[in-house]
């Protein structure tokens, strides 16, 4: 199926009001699954984290993971929701081979959390209040692999293979109320909202929040209505948009696609659509018809969840600071420029810099390490900075040694390399590599005098006030000292001796 015709974006925005609704699924990072004791782990051999419960063998019964309920309550609280005094699980009945029981244990009219809101700030500083309808608990489905055919996609496949390792992994589904007024910013707003949810659940450490692993997935509802019309348009639901960038692209695509259809007198079909990341378009999935009668009813194998006020308050008390508030506070405390701060946030460096500052480094110095040298190394090794074998505390220690003049910048980079190479703590690396600033001024002066004598032209220039010429002499001295001299002090001494 090829791309459909699109209306130019600006024109679409001019003619139509965009209404979006977002459903974000967050996979919790509990040790075990939602309803059984199987490992909640990504990347295991297929069908090795499965048991009678999560492959739906006859007779098996679910039992609820308390930590998953706690994490769900915590997410609800972080989104400003009310927590239900009592709520139940419900069965959502539909047949699909990745659904072991052919019903999903979910929540229906009694979600654990409801009625929240989240303030979203766009790049230009404009801020939106997104209202949260509900957050409910449910279980993930297994993973299908389509084999044969030409594309490896569902269509035209010869057969499919099912791995139930992911079946029963706890999910929290967060559903927004319809979001109006995004205008031309609607796609960006959708992306910023998903980014914010991701950041919140990551900060709370209730999810690994790795979108490339499907820990956070977004279904985006988009509808258009001609400007001035009150009645909402028919919406489509674009499924499993699995990166923040694609959220923006997919919403944008749907706006343009629907606008073209509406402007040409067509009607939008209420359906699910699939986002094709590689080619940047959505294609039609199931038509939402009466065939989608999920026949929800209260899960009779489970009893109601009734979180006590004490329980909820203890979860609330343990919540980390809201990421946005925290960013604002840190931005003020650290005194970075707006650009510097945004780069830090976008590169996901806030936490490591924070930890490094906490360990005693100055904010600017911590920033330079993580967004400079360490980011470069991580990038070269295709890792995140968190995965590097150096801790914020070690970085802070090295920085302290620079500040006190015990290390030069270059030596500090050597120490970092040593730590990364597994040579031990910074002190041990310094010891082993013999990295010591030469503070014997007699030796320095002797070397300087030697260098000046060897380069009389340079001496002449310095005396004429061309101080930048000193560089050549400093270089020679540093070389003579094996790099283990404080370059600033060398410079001072060179100028002094040249007088």
């Amino acid at each position: 199926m090829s791309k459909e015709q699109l209306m130019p974006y600006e024109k679409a925005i001019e003619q139509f009001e965009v209404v979006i609704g977002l459903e974000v699924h967050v996979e919790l990072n509990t040790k075990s699954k939602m309803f059984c004791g199987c490992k909640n782990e990504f990347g295991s051999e297929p069908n090795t984290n499965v048991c009678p419960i999560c492959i739906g063998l006859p007779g098996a019964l679910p039992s609820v993971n308390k930590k998953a309920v706690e994490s769900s309550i915590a997410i609800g609280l972080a989104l400003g929701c009310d927590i239900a005094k009592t709520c139940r699980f419900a069965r959502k009945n539909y047949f699909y081979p990745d659904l072991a029981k052919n019903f999903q244990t979910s929540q229906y009219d009694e979600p654990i959390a409801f009625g929240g809101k989240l303030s979203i700030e766009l790049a230009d500083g404009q801020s939106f209040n997104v209202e949260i309808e509900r957050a409910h608990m449910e279980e993930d489905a297994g993973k299908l692999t389509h084999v044969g055919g030409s594309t490896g996609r569902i269509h035209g496949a010869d057969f499919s293979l099912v791995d139930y390792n992911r079946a029963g992994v706890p999910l929290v589904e967060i559903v927004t109320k319809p979001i109006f007024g995004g205008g031309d910013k609607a796609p960006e707003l959708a992306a910023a909202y998903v980014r914010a949810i991701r950041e919140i659940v990551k900060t709370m450490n209730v999810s690994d929040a790795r979108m490339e692993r499907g820990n956070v997935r977004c279904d985006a509802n988009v509808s258009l209505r001609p400007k001035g019309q009150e009645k909402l348009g028919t919406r489509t639901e674009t499924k499993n948009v699995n990166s923040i960038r694609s959220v923006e692209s997919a919403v944008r695509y749907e706006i343009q696609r629907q606008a073209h259809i509406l402007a040409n007198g067509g009607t939008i079909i209420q359906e699910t659509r699939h986002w094709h990341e590689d080619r940047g378009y959505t294609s039609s999935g199931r038509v939402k018809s009466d065939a989608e009668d999920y026949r929800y009813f209260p899960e009779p194998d489970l009893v109601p969840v009734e979180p006590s006020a004490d329980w909820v308050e203890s979860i609330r008390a343990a919540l980390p600071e809201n990421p946005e508030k925290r960013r604002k506070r840190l931005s003020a405390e650290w005194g970075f420029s707006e650009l510097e701060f945004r780069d830090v946030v976008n590169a996901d460096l806030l936490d490591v810099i924070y930890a490094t500052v906490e360990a005693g480094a100055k904010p600017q110095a911590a920033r330079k390490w993580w967004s400079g040298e360490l980011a470069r190394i991580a990038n070269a090794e295709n890792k995140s900075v968190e995965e590097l074998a150096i801790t914020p505390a070690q970085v802070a220690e090295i920085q302290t040694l620079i500040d006190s003049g015990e290390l030069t910048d270059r030596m500090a980079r050597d120490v970092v390399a040593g730590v990364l190479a597994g040579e031990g703590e910074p002190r041990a690396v310094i010891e082993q590599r013999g990295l010591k600033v030469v503070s014997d001024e007699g030796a320095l002066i002797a070397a300087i005098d030697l260098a000046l004598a060897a380069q009389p032209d340079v001496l002449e220039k310095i005396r004429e006030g061309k101080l930048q010429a000193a560089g050549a002499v400093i270089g020679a001295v540093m070389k003579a000292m094996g790099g283990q001299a404080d370059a600033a002090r060398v410079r001072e001494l060179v100028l002094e001796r040249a007088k």
Partner: protein
Amino acid sequence: MSDLIHKSAAELAQLINSKQVSSVEVTSAFFDRSEKLNHKTFSYLHLNRENALAAAKLADQALAAGKVHSPLHGVPIAVKDVLVTKDAPTTAGSKILEGWMPQYDATVVVKLREAGLPILGKTNMDEFAMGSSTEYSAYGPSRNPWDLQRIPGGSGGGSSSAVAGRLAPLAIGSDTGGSIRYPAAVTGSVGTKPTYGAVSRYGVIALASSLDQIGPVTNTVLDAALLQDVISGHDAKDSTSLPNSLGSMAEAVRNADFKGLRVGVVKQLSSDGFQAGVSERFQDTISKLTANGVEIVEVDCPSFEYSVAAYYLILPAEASSNLAKYDSVRFGMRILPEGNPTIERVMAATREAGFGPEVKRRIILGTYALSSGYYDAYYGSAQKVRTLIQQDLAKAFAKVDVLLTPTAPTTAFKIGEKVNDPLAMYLNDIATIPANLAGIPGISVPNGLAKEDGLPSGVQILAPAMQDAQAYRVAALIENLYKAEWGDYLISQAPDLEALNV
């Protein structure tokens, strides 16, 4: 030792415990008889001598080492095919599961093994426990040891006929609307549905999750009590399992007395619609109790009128969802239609071929009851009827300790008589259903033979939730009254199975 098969489980346990007879001898005796006579009653779908004798041997070895695992140590048992067993195929009476070897044991099966009870085999049942006669078993009906032309009740007719025919001293049943109590009544045996949650449902192939309960099928009240003590108790794998023990049922039986006992008779379940001989037997039971100074009170439970209707909405609704997993992907039958079928067609074809007509009827009825637009009128209203029934029972139990009803409206009917009339079949459970809807315990005890056909009749004792001991107490009292009259248990009057012919 052919007289072994005529002993109660309690007596057998005593003989084994005192080493007068070994578990292997007892197990062999029942196994030999089962192999010889199963073609008459068709009680068992699966018999496994090797497994049974291996377990019996272990029980004997434990005993030799001075270990007694339970008060029923060494006594063999038959298990309804609705419980999953690692060492025996489990079908729930359905073709769709034919040949399935489960990857795990039900909690109750684990408890039986740990308590030293060798498992003789798996008993026949209506497909997925939907039925009152075993005629809906995909493998053919079981037969009543009192008259092989008649049904042994259902869905647990395999277990009831095994016990009444002495192919097993004990059996496990499951009761969703009467599947233990009704078969007990029509085969002259004893059957208990414990309080909902008293016995773990983990590993019990679900029919209707909020109604299903596992319980004992035996020939005496004490045997039922001993067995309930073995299989009950909290199970973390079943979230609806009761957190606390309900105490010893065997003790309640042994200490049973009439002191202060108040018995209620439910106005709605005392005369209308019951076979004359059944009513006569019920009146006889009431008279005997009165004669022993028991106060009899008539209680009004108006909502009982709606119990069968509510039941036949709740059960199909839950069942339609519970049975969705039979889809040919992870276990069970797979039918591949011609051509190059999609999984959707394979699932639909498999379910068409694998489920019998009654199962399909109920799945479709349940799908209807849950579908959008009908939920409130059907499933929602039925759940409200449950509340009304609980309210009626609460009022009744404020006045009396237990309620008595006839267990079944008639004695055993003939095979084939109702098989094509689902509604008539549903009415067999009219007296047993309220207990499932309300979650309370119920026991059926034999109270004689109906005068018009000479077939067994049963009286049902209902007690408040968690008061299973109270139900056992009254069951034991009634059993004692009749034992005094007959000189033995009712089962001693059963015909000689060896002499009967199909």
